[in-house]
């Protein structure tokens, strides 16, 4: 083993949404911070496919969001046979922000108080308003397109750039919301719509999920990382962490990882921080067994890997009898409907859901949608569908349940022999009722807007983008893994900053909240640096 004796103050594992924000904040404070990332850098101007004719095919291969399908060298396989939802992620500098659609809504104030308000799950040990300054700071660094005044949120600081355009398609669907008198708003997006912070405005090319070659989309490889590196942070790519070791007193001592050549290395640090997502983080903790922690690191509660939450998605698609120019503009239109977000006692489920609007499918995706027959009627059916569909992604709040979990698969490993995760997940009755309600209301909007045909997928399988809850926050060490500062109850120099620590999921995309939490935790560590570092 190659032991690197240059001990660092803080070692972060994972260079995605949370790891990037956290590393920047610590580097800014002058701490010596290093980040290990198992993927590599992507060069936006040469590595993305959207300037080539075959760009859509990359969704099936090297840019598929499912690591089991993508199967790149930097990925690890996941046993997801026991889950109706497939976990999705990307491994690179920037993490899953590389392939995300840049939805950037915040969780709402009620999301942090579900026990008090609705007597379900647990309250978070902190509030929306505790996080508010960090939401604002994060928005400033990431660059957020949006429109102030959304009635579904407390007032926010000014958005950095104007909202993503609605286009003809947006105007069409908004007419449905308007007639019903339901809430809709141009939701926050981490996309520059005009030049901001040295990056250009979006040119509305469409497929954000295949990476943004012009850097208008605010993936963290083009936002936080250049700033963090300039401040002196060190980033080691192709570093695949096997385990975290502890010393005799039970403190985290080092991370053992494989470099790109498969050589085992060990990196010491005063503080170790996990930022490897809601599946990757419990995987590392459960793989880090020792005599002091035989059930996995920081797992005296037995809750590491438990309470896995996705956001279950139902998909509702309306077909219209006019060309909506649905290929123009970011595919995620970023209209959000929060009409059904909060609990309503007259419904047969607690908590709520949103839906987001998605523009029409691109040509190949249209052909492969399952709606276009082969043979004589192929072209006529294609013509009636292409550029004429609008889709709602109904996103339900998934409540934590102990049987939904990440464990270590007894057989499956990655190419370096590191044991892989196994997912077991069942959709709850509450979530099913919620999604069914969402399918009903989404269908109403489609009809009102003039859809001539409406279809739906009750539970989208390839939709496990949001990985949460597997190392939850809380005040009680028997009922949670980390405290309100992401600090492990069992190991006081070990922190977790990704979606694992979410107590509940809310019903919106989590990235903005994950990053705000990471900045909040970083601020705490900086304020206590003497205590943690002994200097």
């Amino acid at each position, binding site marked *: 083993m190659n032991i690197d004796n240059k001990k660092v103050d803080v070692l972060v594992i994972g260079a995605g949404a949370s790891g990037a924000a956290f590393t920047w904040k610590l580097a800014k404070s002058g701490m010596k911070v290093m980040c290990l990332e198992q993927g590599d850098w992507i060069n936006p101007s040469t590595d993305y496919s959207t300037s080539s004719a075959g760009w859509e095919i990359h969704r099936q291969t090297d840019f598929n969001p499912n690591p089991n399908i993508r199967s790149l060298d930097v990925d690890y396989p996941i046993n997801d046979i026991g889950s109706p939802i497939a976990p999705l992620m990307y491994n690179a500098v920037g993490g899953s922000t590389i392939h995300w659609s840049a939805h950037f809504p915040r969780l709402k104030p009620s999301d942090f108080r579900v026990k008090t308000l609705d007597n379900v799950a647990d309250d978070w040990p902190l509030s929306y308003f505790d996080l508010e300054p960090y939401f604002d700071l994060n928005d400033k660094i990431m660059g957020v397109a949006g429109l102030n005044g959304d009635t579904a949120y407390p007032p926010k600081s000014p958005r950095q750039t104007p909202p993503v355009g609605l286009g003809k398609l947006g105007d069409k669907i908004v007419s449905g919301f308007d007639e019903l008198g339901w809430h809709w708003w141009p939701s926050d997006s981490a996309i520059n719509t005009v030049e901001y912070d040295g990056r250009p405005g979006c040119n509305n090319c469409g497929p954000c999920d295949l990476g943004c070659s012009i850097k208008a989309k605010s993936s963290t490889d083009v936002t936080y990382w250049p700033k963090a590196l300039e401040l002196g942070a060190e980033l080691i790519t192709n570093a695949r962490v096997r385990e975290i070791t502890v010393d005799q007193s039970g403190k985290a001592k080092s991370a053992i990882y494989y470099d790109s050549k498969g050589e085992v290395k060990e990196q010491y640090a005063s503080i170790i921080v996990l930022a490897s997502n809601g599946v990757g983080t419990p995987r590392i903790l459960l793989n880090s067994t020792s005599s002091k922690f035989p059930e996995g690191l920081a797992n005296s509660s037995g809750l590491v890997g438990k309470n896995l939450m996705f956001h279950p998605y139902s998909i509702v698609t309306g077909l219209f009898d006019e060309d909506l120019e649905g290929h123009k503009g970011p595919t995620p239109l970023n209209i959000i409907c929060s009409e059904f977000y909060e609990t309503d006692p007259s419904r047969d489920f607690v908590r709520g859901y949103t839906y987001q609007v998605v523009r029409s499918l691109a040509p190949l995706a249209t*052909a492969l949608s399952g709606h276009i027959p082969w043979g004589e009627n192929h072209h006529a059916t294609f013509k009636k569908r292409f550029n004429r569909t609008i889709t709602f992604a109904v996103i339900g709040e998934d409540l934590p349940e102990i049987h939904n979990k990440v464990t270590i698969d007894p057989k499956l490993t990655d190419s370096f022999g590191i044991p892989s995760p196994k997912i077991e997940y069942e959709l709850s009755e509450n979530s099913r009722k919620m999604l069914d309600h969402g399918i009903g209301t989404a269908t109403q909007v489609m009809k009102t807007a003039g859809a001539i045909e409406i279809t739906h997928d009750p539970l989208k399988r390839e939709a496990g983008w949001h990985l949460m809850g597997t190392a939850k926050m809380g005040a009680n060490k028997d009922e949670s893994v980390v405290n309100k500062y992401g600090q492990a109850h069992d190991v006081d120099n070990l922190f977790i900053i990704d979606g694992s620590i979410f107590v509940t999921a809310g019903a919106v995309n989590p990235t903005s909240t994950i990053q705000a939490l990471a900045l909040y935790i970083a601020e705490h560590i900086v304020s206590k640096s003497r205590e943690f570092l002994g200097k």
Partner: protein
Amino acid sequence: MKTLSKNNADILGEMVDLLIPANKNLPAPSKINVVEHIDDALSNTPKMKRIFVEGLADINNKEFLSLPKMEQIALLTKYESSNGTFFSLLLRHTYNAYYTNPIVVAGIGMTGRPPQPLGYTLEKGNLTLLDKVIKKGQIWRNP
């Protein structure tokens, strides 16, 4: 061809033209190198190559090329249900090649170029309809 024999390439050409028949605006797949595209994909994927070679051999045994068009279509319809793995791979790779071809992309009403670097012009849209939402006032729940 990298992988397919001439006979298999001929069968495949006939098949893809039945899956996506030409019309006055859009070409037959065999005329825009869809067969070559599939052959190229097969050369990189041994498992898929095996499925195709076995599937095409089976089709060949039915003397596919000499069948009348309606019988060819009936045979493909039968394959769709009886040999789903082969058929779904055939359909996906036919669509992959066809709908990423600039001639086809232009023929369906787009510009025939990929999304970048030029992108598209997008209208801002009508945000005045938000007035009704604003008039309804706060809907977030203050805990």
